[in-house]
């Protein structure tokens, strides 16, 4: 990997990311897949970085999953998006931060459409007014939650308790970064680093002590692809995409995968189990899987949060090899110990999250 060349390309694709006063919208599927991630993001933003992050209880799905699954028409999706913007306007915020990559892609697409076709925006405004009586302002700044963590990666590194370094060898952990397709492949100028060389996760990994590995299928889709997974008969294509990525990254012996999309960690994590069940193949060292993390989980780990409070017990591929390598102090017996967590709460010992 020629870092100098990549940096030259990355430098052309920078985006404006707001400093404070964020209106945060959660993902509709992410809380089921990796429920600790969004909680970790809020804790990092509010308690570590002291930022103002607002969540609205009336927020709904952006309908992007239905739009990309071909069951929600674009005008309906736009009206739902307009309602989310109206909630933001009512709350008095202007910096919109979606947790989901597909939401980010949909919001970007909608804003671009309205920019080029103002009559469509007027039509959507009328539809929203008629249906809900609401009015909205377009966000001044739209950034994905990973953009925010990327912006404050140095501040997080300064507070870090651990680093992405193998404590036994002193070598940096080899990290595969996987960016959701809807982050910058649709609108390269809207992502940090563009579509071919997105820097958003690579920047975090480098700042936190790890080494990003470049491999042939780095930009390949994880396999979610909406219809590929949503229709059971098509799931063979979904798992084949992940398999292609694993086979491509395996020779580089990655220690972990870091992702910024709801679907990618889900499928890169779960499909490892399915491939092992179907074909008996695993892609990590010594017959183990390759642990898959969200960027919030990685940020939480280096800040010293309890892995089980981050929800790492929800992963299908065990995360313990990475915890051991980083030298994280954790209690393996508490992994599925719900009673222990309840005891911790009852004894008024504050949870890490």
């Amino acid at each position, binding site marked *: 990997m020629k870092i100098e060349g990549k940096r030259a390309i990355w430098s052309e694709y920078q985006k404006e990311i707001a400093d404070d006063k964020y209106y945060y919208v959660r993902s509709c599927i992410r809380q089921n897949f990796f429920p600790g991630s969004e909680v970790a993001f809020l804790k990092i933003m509010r308690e570590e970085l002291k930022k103002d992050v607002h969540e609205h209880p009336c927020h709904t799905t952006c309908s992007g999953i239905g739009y990309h699954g071909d069951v929600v028409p674009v005008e309906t999706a736009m009206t739902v998006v307009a309602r989310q913007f109206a909630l933001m306007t009512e709350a008095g915020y202007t910096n919109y931060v979606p947790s989901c990559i597909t939401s980010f892609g949909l919001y970007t697409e909608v804003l671009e459409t309205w920019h080029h076709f103002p009559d469509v925006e007027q039509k959507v405004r009328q539809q929203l007014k008629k249906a809900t009586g609401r009015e909205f302002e377009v966000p001044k700044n739209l950034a994905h939650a990973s953009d925010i963590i990327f912006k404050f990666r140095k501040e997080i590194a300064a507070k870090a308790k651990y680093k992405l370094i193998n404590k036994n060898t002193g070598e940096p952990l080899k990290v595969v970064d996987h960016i959701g397709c809807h982050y910058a492949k649709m609108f390269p100028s809207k992502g940090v680093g563009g579509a071919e060389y997105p820097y958003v996760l690579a920047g975090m990994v480098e700042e936190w002590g790890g080494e990003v590995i470049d491999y042939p299928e780095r930009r390949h889709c994880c396999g979610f692809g909406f219809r590929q997974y949503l229709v059971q008969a098509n799931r063979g294509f979904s798992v*084949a995409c992940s398999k292609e990525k694993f086979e491509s990254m395996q020779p580089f012996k990655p220690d972990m995968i870091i992702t910024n999309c709801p679907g990618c960690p889900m499928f890169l994590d779960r499909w490892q189990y399915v*491939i092992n069940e179907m074909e008996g193949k695993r892609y990590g060292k010594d017959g183990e899987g390759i642990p898959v993390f969200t960027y919030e989980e990685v940020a939480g780990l280096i800040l010293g949060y309890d892995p089980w409070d981050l929800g790492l017990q929800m992963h299908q591929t065990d995360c313990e090899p990475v915890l051991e390598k980083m030298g994280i102090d954790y209690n393996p017996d508490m992994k599925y110990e719900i009673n222990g967590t309840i005891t911790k709460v009852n004894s008024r010992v504050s949870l890490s999250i």
Partner: protein
Amino acid sequence: MDKFGFAISQQRQIDFEANRRDIAEYISEKEPSFRVCIECGCCAATCTTGNFTPFSLRELLILLKRGENDKVRDNINKCMLCGKCTLVCPRGVNTRNVISLAREAFQDRIKNAV
């Protein structure tokens, strides 16, 4: 398959670097008309074997050119060498000879190479 209700789809990407074109080159050398085949499928349309079985000469010729030899080797002996394909070929490819040479190549010359 039974456990999950689906199977992992096979790779459809053609890896030209991994494929071996020895057989195609051998045939082209001995039967130069093989080079002008335009894969129109007239041979397959007139093929008696193809009418009664999934055998397709057009498919085999394409696979040979790509160097995807496994399926060709498994199916080439289904041809009865009647020669009707040669009669209808608009490019004048001696398809009958192409098949004979392919069989020869698989059996003798490059038996262990593919």
